[in-house]
């Protein structure tokens, strides 16, 4: 059972929900927000193992290359450019698709590997914590996410997704059985929640909503969920103590009031997405 946690907008509390909930329900934690992975700050796992994420890039054998330029012509990502004296590679644009190799009549192209990020895995008690980290300056996060999600630990896995609704999130959702959308009751949060709802509906995933920074005066999210027949899994109120705990990298379930809230959410979660 893989549960994706997403939000539309950044800063709504995806990581707070994922990390705290994983300790309450005993789920493994997988941080797919590889551009800004923050979950390990809170879970602080031990016995970390590291593995490189590598991508393929073409190398041109200048002795064989006749500068016909077919490789550059076929490249959809403009990663290869023919100049008067050689074939230039913009390695960060390369998707490693091997189309250039297929069209090269001279067999002048071979592939090598380069690192674009790392995967880390550690333990928090019995739970497995994994995260991907994209190297600074690398534009493409998807290969890191794909590698991270290639093998899942057994049991329940919470997948902490990137913000937004673009390719990074889509790639994480490929592996999800259900989803939790975290939102906040503001005009921004609400606007972006609707985009996230559309995304999980495109994937036909069962899902529910958690309202973070809940404020009783603002019920726009509840009204919307009622109208759209969306399960509300819980509401997490804003308190200064919680914000302080978060800011210094502490889990908010260390505060009894929040522990209770998360236990309620866990109960509701089992009603909505039953698992063994």
């Amino acid at each position, binding site marked *: 059972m893989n549960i994706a946690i997403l939000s539309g907008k950044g800063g709504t509390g995806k990581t707070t929900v994922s990390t705290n909930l994983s300790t309450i329900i005993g789920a493994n934690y997988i941080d797919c927000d590889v551009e800004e992975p923050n979950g390990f700050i809170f879970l602080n796992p031990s016995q970390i193992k590291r593995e490189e994420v590598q991508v393929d890039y073409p190398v041109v054998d200048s002795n064989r290359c006749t500068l016909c330029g077919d490789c550059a012509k076929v490249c959809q990502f403009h990663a290869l450019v023919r100049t008067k004296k050689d074939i230039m590679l913009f390695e960060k644009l390369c998707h490693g698709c091997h*189309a250039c190799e297929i069209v090269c009549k001279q067999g002048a192209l071979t592939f090598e590997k380069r690192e674009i990020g790392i995967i880390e895995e550690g333990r928090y008690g019995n739970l497995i914590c994994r995260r991907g980290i994209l190297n600074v300056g690398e534009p*493409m996060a998807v290969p890191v996410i794909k590698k991270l999600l290639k093998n899942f630990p057994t049991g329940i896995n919470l997948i902490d997704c990137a913000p937004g609704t673009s390719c990074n999130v*889509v790639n994480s959702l490929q592996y999800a059985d259900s989803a939790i959308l975290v939102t906040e009751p503001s005009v921004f949060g609400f606007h972006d929640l609707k985009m996230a709802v559309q995304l999980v509906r495109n994937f036909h995933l069962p899902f529910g909503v958690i309202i973070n920074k809940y404020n009783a005066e603002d019920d726009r999210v509840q009204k919307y969920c009622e109208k759209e027949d969306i399960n509300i899994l819980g509401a997490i109120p804003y308190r200064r103590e919680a914000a302080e705990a978060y800011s*210094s990298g502490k889990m908010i379930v260390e505060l009894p009031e929040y522990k209770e809230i998360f236990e309620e959410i866990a109960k509701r979660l089992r009603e909505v997405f039953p698992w063994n």
Partner: protein
Amino acid sequence: MELTVISGKGGTGKTTIAMALSELAKDVVKADCDVDAPNLYLFYKGRDIKKEYFYGGKKAVIDKKFCTDCKECEKVCQFDAIKDGIVNPFKCEGCGACTLVCPQKAVRLKEEKTADVYITQTNKGIISRAQMEVGSEGSGKLITQLRSNARKFSDENILIIIDGSPGIGCPVISSITGSDAVLIVTEPTQSGLEDFVRVMELCRHFGVLTFACINKYDINDKMAGEIGGFCRENDVYVIGKIPYDDTVMKSINELKPIVHYEGSKANQAIRKMWDNIQEYINRINQ
């Protein structure tokens, strides 16, 4: 002059600050480059004076009439996007390798519309913005388009303010490369600091003039001090420090920029930051 506001971490107040600065600048063109979660335009009533389709990528399409199920396309696909002769559009990266190996020429690439691109005229000037199709890719190219649209409506006397996206990946890289200055908005939390370090390294990597702004600096003084210290060590000027202020949430929900709340502490701090930014702009222009 192009000023890009980014954040490393989401939810730190990028849009609030980008908007406040746009209000304070007299002549300004805005570009909402947080294409995943575009919020800036929500504040303005305007008229879309131009709407275009944006084709951000391609996807493979198999013509079943010609397909003999030889599976050559599946074998060559590096992205596991083809299974039993069916293309998974979410996995397909549009590289076209499959089109090259199909003996029947049954596979072709089809351009994919990934966004609607708008130029919106408001009573406070032009906003260049986009609405991405949910689940689309290729936002880097889209951002290049949005910046180029914004430039059409500005000259050297008109400032362009870009509201960037969180993270360090392709949308952010496309938002900052070639920009005159970058303002990183951060918050004093452990995660804010970690993400700030990464996005600051990114700005350095691309050699862009970078400023920092610590938003809600008083929610954790110790953390704010750490961020300040980190900036000093790395020669990044903390151009503004903005206190936590409930009025900001009120301003978002009332869809009225924070600079119009006279008594707001955040407003006062942002105005001070704007003075500092202007001083820099003037110095650059001299």
